[in-house]
């Protein structure tokens, strides 16, 4: 596979390490009332669609960026790639 890195252009997917569902960015609040339940769902109940999937890839043999890749799990077609950091900020994550 080829991942079109937002900064570096097309790169061999072999340079990357896969993590999974991009919802892993959305880590729950540890102090929430139902933090236990939220963390369980966050960690264990991930999106697993047969179709478009937003997922995290780490450019381990490259620039060490985490990317959010939108990829179709039936065809493996990749339609969109973002820096995960930008996605995280857009989701309101800060520090």
């Amino acid at each position, binding site marked *: 596979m*080829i991942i079109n890195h937002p900064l570096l252009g097309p790169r061999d997917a072999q340079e990357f390490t896969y993590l999974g569902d991009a919802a892993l960015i959305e880590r729950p609040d*540890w*102090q929430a009332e139902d*933090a236990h339940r939220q*963390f369980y769902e966050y960690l264990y109940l991930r999106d697993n669609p047969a179709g478009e999937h937003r997922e*995290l890839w780490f450019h381990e043999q490259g620039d060490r960026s985490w990317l959010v890749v939108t990829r179709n799990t039936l065809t493996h077609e990749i339609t969109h790639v973002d820096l995960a*950091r930008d996605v995280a*900020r857009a989701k309101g994550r800060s520090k």
Partner: protein
Amino acid sequence: MTQSNRLTAGRIDRAQVLNFTFDGKRYQGHGGDTLASALLANGVRLMGRSFKYHRPRGVLSAGSEEPNALVELRGGARQEPNTRATTAELFDGLEAKSQNRWPSLAFDAMAINDRFSAFLTAGFYYKTFMWPAAFWEKLYEPMIRRAAGLGSISFEPDPDCYDKGFLHCDLLVIGAGPAGLSAALTAGRAGARVILADEDFLLGGRLNTETISVGEQSGGDWAGTIVAELAQMPNVRVMMRTTVIGAFDHGIYGAVERVSDHLAVPPEGKPRQILWRITSRRALLCAGAIERPIAFSDNDRPGIMLAGALRAYVNRWAVTPARDVVIFGNNDDAHRSAADLLARGVHVAAVVDIRAQAKPIADYELLAGAQVVGTQGRLGIRGVEVRLASGEIRRINCGALGVSGGWNPNVHLTCHKRGRPEWREDIAAFVPGPDGPAGLSVAGAATGLFSTASALSSGSKAAAAALRDLGIRARALPQPATEDAPVSITPFWHVAEGKGRAWLDQQNDVTVKDVKLAHQENFRSVEHLKRYTTLGMATDQGKTSNLGGLAVMAELTGQTIAKTGTTIFRPPYTPVALGVLAGRSRGKDFRPVRKTPSHKWAQEQGAVFVEVGMWLRAQWFPRPGETHWRESVDREVLATRRSVGICDVTTLGKIDVQGGDAAAFLNRIYANGFAKLAVGKVRYGLMLREDGIAMDDGTAARLAEDHFVVTTTTANAVNVYRHMEFARQCLWPDMDVQLISTTESWAQFSVAGPNSRRLLQKVVDPAFDLSNEAFPFMACGEITVCGGLRARLFRISFSGELAYEIAVPTRYGDAMIRRLMAAGEEFDVVAYGTEALGVMRIEKGHAAGNELNGTTTARNLGMAQMVSKTKDSIGSVLSEREGLSEPDTLTLVGLRPVDATQRVLAGAHLMTKGTVANAANDQGYITSAAYSPNLGHSIGLAFLRNGAARKGEVIEAVSPLTGLNVDVEVVSAHFIDPEGERLRA
């Protein structure tokens, strides 16, 4: 040694005479021959035996679709089983043997199977061999296995090397027949980066096997002209002997280049083959078509081959399998074979065409509306029986029979991403469907355009269209005048009449009757048909047989062929040597080696090395007179605890953590607190995964307000770094923190033992005070050594002794170990390896990889109190789940044998005394064990249920696997210096 069946002309180099042997017999051929063409030239028709019935078989095809003529090529360690004689390029000295026969090819004792074929029908083995049950492994299966299989391997290491590589292009053209050449030329002239790949060693495809002219030239000459032009273009790479084996994601194609297979031995340093991973922006499949046979009674005798193959042998290789030939077909192309054979002086005894309205195109006898209903000849065909249109039977003598059931476009690669081909009634063939790989288009015969003219024009147009997508302007080529015959075919799959069996899959011996039986037993889906009868599962993957089989099934079910469908085409297009898929990654080069900075020195000391991940580390340093590893290890441990020892600990991961939020960041990464760690101090840290399980442990040293150095275990260095980057970029993107892996930048040595300070004082520059007051336990700092070399010093201890870790720039690591050892001479310093390191950490009760096995919690490790509940850190929430926080859970304890002479064994399970040793009574397991030279007996670390409360209890360590049961006493895991006085000294 006469080549009795060699004709004139052909695209071979007669000046080159090549000697070769087949089954020990000597023959001669010419440059440009394949093994098959050379054998045919020498009058050899019998080349192999079938898989199941050991039927005598000859060559069926002239290409990589060959099911029958499989040989063991070469000898010794280079022996290559199942090699197709039709693609093996002849070289001087080639040796080949027939296979799957005993004692000889002409007389094969296993052919007895054929006599019992009535009992050995499709799937018979599923219905028998069940009694008695134990006989399967002992009797039936070994018998079946010996009979099955095809060629054999040498078992010796492959002496040749292989390479891998990566190529990039705008347009990959697969196949260099008329369509492919035309496409490559179009794209090449447009300036695009083109790769043209073809499996053959002569480019031109069918142009080399036909008598068709293109413009003013013969087809073969035209191909040669085009190839020459392409070879001159810097933007075009022409790759012959290169098979594109598979279509993968995003325009990536795998290709195997057979660099040296046409040579007796690869040139020094050069690979036998190369696996290319080709990244193409567009690809064009011009793979042509493969002729298919018709099944009829006894259609498998040597000498019966595809009509187009017969034509190819005559035209390209100037050989004929016999002087008297019959042609049998259902389409016009069969007649072309007859005409070409006649033109080369081969006697065409008759052309049998199932079509009543068929017309001859040359001077041969045409038997229209007739069918071949039988053949004679045991080791080679002698004649055929033909049912004439009149109903009479006619017997015709012949030494070869050419069969044509029509041509199948070579759709293989279009289906590698699970696309399905579509049935076209007008040409009675499957053509590429609309759902092929993105970026791949198809031209020429592979799309069902069978004439030379349409191949040339479709190739050129498809190339231009593909380039247009990329914004590259290309002009379609002017089309030379050439053959442009329409397809005329009447679909026909098998002759119903006949006494013998009608073979579909000749390698796996699948007959029309087998398909009928599968139908009768409800194995009607094409996949069930394939799996039940083994149709199409042979080394040719059914390239010439699948369609016939499913057509018979369609007849039986009354469904159309389109509805019946095909099985799935899977890569590789043709079989690929495992060696080339591995490339250079074999033997010692399987994975890179990481060497520690003291490697060279350790080697000089005669160290024994051990693989630790990719690292090679010194395991122990034997001294003269030491005959057993334990002697060396015990000495290293004792000397370290008595005085001082030095160990290279560079392999531990080191991560530079900087930034204004570095402390806050580490506070989230570690379960215990890091926000308040003072500058100049080190703290032990436990990292959890988000699921609350221990991930790694190590230390973090605070070199400045905004600068930490984190250490990880050797095994987890990469994972921890990735995890921290995830936290930094994805979880807390606005934290001011920067991470750099610096594992390799520093040569780090542990200097441990009561004399470690005194030793270091001789090396560290005097400006730095190493006294216990100035540099206490868990202190760290940047220092200089040996007169000004920058270094780092950490007062941490894995051994439990007064100890330091000192780090210098890696290039000075070698000099540093030598200096440290020299400085330590007066203290009888020892170097110690990973074994002694392991013994000392077990003596001290430190957890390591065996304990941090991915299922242990802080509670298991006895560190529950370290997991802070007053801050957010990764894993803290889920670490509280009920299954992870049971009070009587497994806890880390120490074990010592009640009888000090007995050995504690890692991997033993723990049982309460007096209980039966079984899984229900299991109380835990021993994770690590060692002989403690300090205590004089074996010791172990273990996870024991409710372990903390069981100190003093004697339990049983059972190991039925090794037959060793030992009574052990539960003790503190800290065998040595439980109060930690030594490391604070």
